[in-house]
């Protein structure tokens, strides 16, 4: 397809170009804009009709004018060259090398928007991923091909947690073809360095592909970046049969960029100024996690987002929660009490947990223990707020047990070290130990045979 060059720019805004009389422009077609000084910026066709074609610019429109700026239509949608050479490299938000190396050349090019996976082609994710973190493994089990975001707040230990998961994540059965794709979206360079250092320490760096858009770089690239990261992940998973963990941080910056573009396009805003299609847009990223029939590999996503003012009903965490298969919620209260990782197990959830646990993958009592721990901790926390009003003395004997349990649960079960890698058996046994401080007759969610077999009550 030949490239056609136009110099018919009619209007320039801070993210859009309006080009007149473009022949046969295609929707989502890739565009290259050349400034008078030779600088080249890329863009994409946003809408087109016989008179005007609207181009969205990836980057700044600084220096563009209606007189000398040239627009070239590339005749194709945004495609990314893919090969195994990507591994171990660092790219920017448009896929250009930022580590001083050469660009990736490959005959194999993949559309960065991907195509929806046919639901009929999906395989149900069911392989347990041991993260070595009790509050995740026991209570909110991660499985291969899942999308499980970390809902955090500014200043909480989400980066540390994500790095620990990457370090410790391994499957019970075997160690295989495993890669990490990291997408840093609008993060600062310190956070970026933290991840790169941690990956280096754990040996994950030589098995990773990194895309970085730092806080000072163009926000338009933030909308492209996760698509590049997921395209790389899909290539590794479905062409190279690898198990890939994708970490996208911080999705809040992504949503902000989306809002910025939407506002520039004069679209009718939805809740809190975010575009009405934000659900669909986020879904087009998150749904790219999964496992498909007939292929060995899988794409597991751990997106990180910081909830503005810790509000879980804010549109960003809210829409994300409706798309993803659960969420790991970090709590400021736990963090303040010195508990790392401060996972709020009551608000957290893994929707694919049931498929990944039980007799053949973790242990037969897993579901029951997890349910009982949840219920007991919920009850303990409820009583904690009650005692603030009526005092501990007003509680019954059983209630006091629950109150004590909640303390222990937070300090011994949730809390663990950055280098503490607990096996699932250790985690479950710890759960039983904590439960045994409550009367056996309260164990309504556990089958009697499991109490018999694993219980730690003194008789």
């Amino acid at each position: 397809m030949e490239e056609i060059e136009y110099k018919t720019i009619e209007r320039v805004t801070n993210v859009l170009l309006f080009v007149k009389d473009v022949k046969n422009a295609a929707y989502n077609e890739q565009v290259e804009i050349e400034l008078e000084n030779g600088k080249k910026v890329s863009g994409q066709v946003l809408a087109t009709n016989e008179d005007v074609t609207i181009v969205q610019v990836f980057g700044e429109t600084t220096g563009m004018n209606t007189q000398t700026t040239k627009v070239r239509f590339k005749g194709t949608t945004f495609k990314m060259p893919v090969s195994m050479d990507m591994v171990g490299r660092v790219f920017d938000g448009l896929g250009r090398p930022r580590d001083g190396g050469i660009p990736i050349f490959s005959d194999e090019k993949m559309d960065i928007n991907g195509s929806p996976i046919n639901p009929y082609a999906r395989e149900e994710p069911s392989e347990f991923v041991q993260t070595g973190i009790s509050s995740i493994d026991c209570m909110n089990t991660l499985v291969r091909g899942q999308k499980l975001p970390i809902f955090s707040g500014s200043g909480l230990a989400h980066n540390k947690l994500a790095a620990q998961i990457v370090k410790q994540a391994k499957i019970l059965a075997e160690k295989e073809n495993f890669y990490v794709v990291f997408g840093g979206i609008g993060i600062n360079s310190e956070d970026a360095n933290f991840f790169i250092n941690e990956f280096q320490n754990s040996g994950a760096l030589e098995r990773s592909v990194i895309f970085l858009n730092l806080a000072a770089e163009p926000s338009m690239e933030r909308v492209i970046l996760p698509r590049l990261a997921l395209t790389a992940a899909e290539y590794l998973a479905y062409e190279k049969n690898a198990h890939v963990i994708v970490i996208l941080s911080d999705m809040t910056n992504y949503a902000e960029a989306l809002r910025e573009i939407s506002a520039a396009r004069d679209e009718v805003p939805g809740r809190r100024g975010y575009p009405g299609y934000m659900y669909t847009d986020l879904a087009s990223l998150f749904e790219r996690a999964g496992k498909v029939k007939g292929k060995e590999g899988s794409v597991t996503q751990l997106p990180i987002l910081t909830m503005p003012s810790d509000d879980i009903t804010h549109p960003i965490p809210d829409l994300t929660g409706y798309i993803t298969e659960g969420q790991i919620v970090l709590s400021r209260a736990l963090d303040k009490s010195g508990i790392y990782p401060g996972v709020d197990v009551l608000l957290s959830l893994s929707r694919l947990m049931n498929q990944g646990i039980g007799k053949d993958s973790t242990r037969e009592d897993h579901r029951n223990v997890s349910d009982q721990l949840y219920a007991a901790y919920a009850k303990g926390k409820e009583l904690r707020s009650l005692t603030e009003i009526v005092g501990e003395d007003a509680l019954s004997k059983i209630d006091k047990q629950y109150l004590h349990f909640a303390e222990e649960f937070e300090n011994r079960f949730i809390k663990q070290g950055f280098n503490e890698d607990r096996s699932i058996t250790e985690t479950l046994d710890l759960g039983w130990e904590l439960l045994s401080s409550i009367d056996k007759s309260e164990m309504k969610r556990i089958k009697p045979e499991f109490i018999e077999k694993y219980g730690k009550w003194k008789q």
Partner: protein
Amino acid sequence: MEGKVIGISGSVVTVSGLEDPKMNNIVFIGENELVGEIVKIEEKNAIVQVYEDTSGLKIGEKAVDSKEPLSVELGPGLIGSIFDGIQRPLDKILNKEGTFISSGVKVNSLDREKKWHFKPKVEEGKAVEAGEEIGEVKETSLIKHKVLVPVNQKGIVKKIVEEGDYTVDETIAVLENDKKTEEIKLMTKWPVRTARPVKEKLSPTIPLLTGQRVIDTMFPVAMGGTAAVPGPFGSGKTVIQHQLAKWSDADVIVYVGCGERGNEMTEILTTFPELKDPKSGKPLMDRTILIANTSNMPVAAREASIYTGITLAEYYRDMGYSVAVMADSTSRWAEALRELSGRLEEMPGEEGYPAYLGRRIGEFYERAGRARILSGKIGAATIIGAVSPPGGDISEPVSQNTLRVTRVFWALDASLANARHFPSINWLNSYSLYTDELDQWYRKNIAEDWPELRDKAMATLQKEAEINEIVQLVGYDALPESDKLILDVARMLREDYLQQNAFDETDTYASVSKQYKMLKIINEVFDAEKAALERNVPIEKLQSIQIKPKIARLRYTKEEEIDDKLKEIEKDIEAIKKTSTEK
């Protein structure tokens, strides 16, 4: 005459040069023949909503008017299939295209090659009316597919084929009416946005039994009724929808996954063929149709998927079946509507939703109902719609418009879900407007005292909420003994009755008779303990009798063993009755 594309903005494409374009006609856009529907006509230009990704579509590409509205193919082969929002079979697309769905795939909804064994039911020369059965095809182990005279047709059967194997587009009968002849095939077509006609709508008098205690006992939905399930994420909407699809006693289930997760559809596809229908013991897939437009599939087809689902449901209703439609989630459908309305630059109503949102929601739920169908028999279509309100706040337009037209409201509650109380249906603010109409059925078919038992349990739970407010102020110890008893009983009701574990192989389904027995025994314990308190027996003494763990086990007790367990509990109740005031 062929038109051409003159404007593209996402899924909305402007086409010029079509000869006499009509609203809602299907247009094939571009070289790839993307499927679209005319949603607006401006002078000579047609505005088309395209059901597929338009990336790469160019100005100047062709557009062809099909001259037909968006329709579905109806005939044997629907059951057990999985379709996308515009009824393209996803299994066939997989064979043709591989793992990913690309734009412009052409696949017939119904298999044209497959032969079905047709048994005629009428003789030549008989006068038949629209909706009358002329023959039958055994579609699956559970469904006899009745071949009906199409709507708007009638006449004398001039010819009908013999029993044998036929494809869906072979002629199986010829009708003669006013000297005109009409050929009847196994397959017909129907426009999805038009409700299929019935003789009359009847009032619902039979419950749709679901095997879920909180639903069947407290907030039942009638066969042919409508129910809304709003709840924040993580509150278990999808699990409830799956449970109803698995265990409700409808003959046919149409499950519409509208803008939801791909893995959820996969879960249905992997578990349903292995699960057995509790009534017949046959695989559940033999009564299920799946429609999947996952959240990353084109948004315009999401808008259509709901209509595709209800049209397929009406088709089986017209054969006299009871059909249940699960729509998960109608909020995604409404958002698709909002997105398309925005692209059409319509004046937005509340929260950016189009002003016609309420009417569209009303129209959809109105297609439910128990009805006298054209043949004079009775069929029913029940709609159960999940709603995903932003932040769980149901004051938003989709929830509010839905609650106006649905008669059952199962309010899912985040705090219950966080305490792992599932199903997280809040008993204090949920309601069913069918309760009174269905009481008679319950009295006649289950037990005379069912409504009273239910009301008493409900009252206990209400009272518990009141007492809990007092506990917040004065503490548990300061309560009178009678209130402590209410708390004990309410806890039993909540934990051992209302809670139900969808992932336990026994607890996942409870027959109505098991439900009745459980409720009855809890009530007996209540009465016995109340009487004991009146005899001044201290409550600690009652609490020390180990009856509650036994009641808690009833959930996990198989139906055939329940009577034995009840006998054991009866003994404990006798013990309560004999308690004295002595320490």
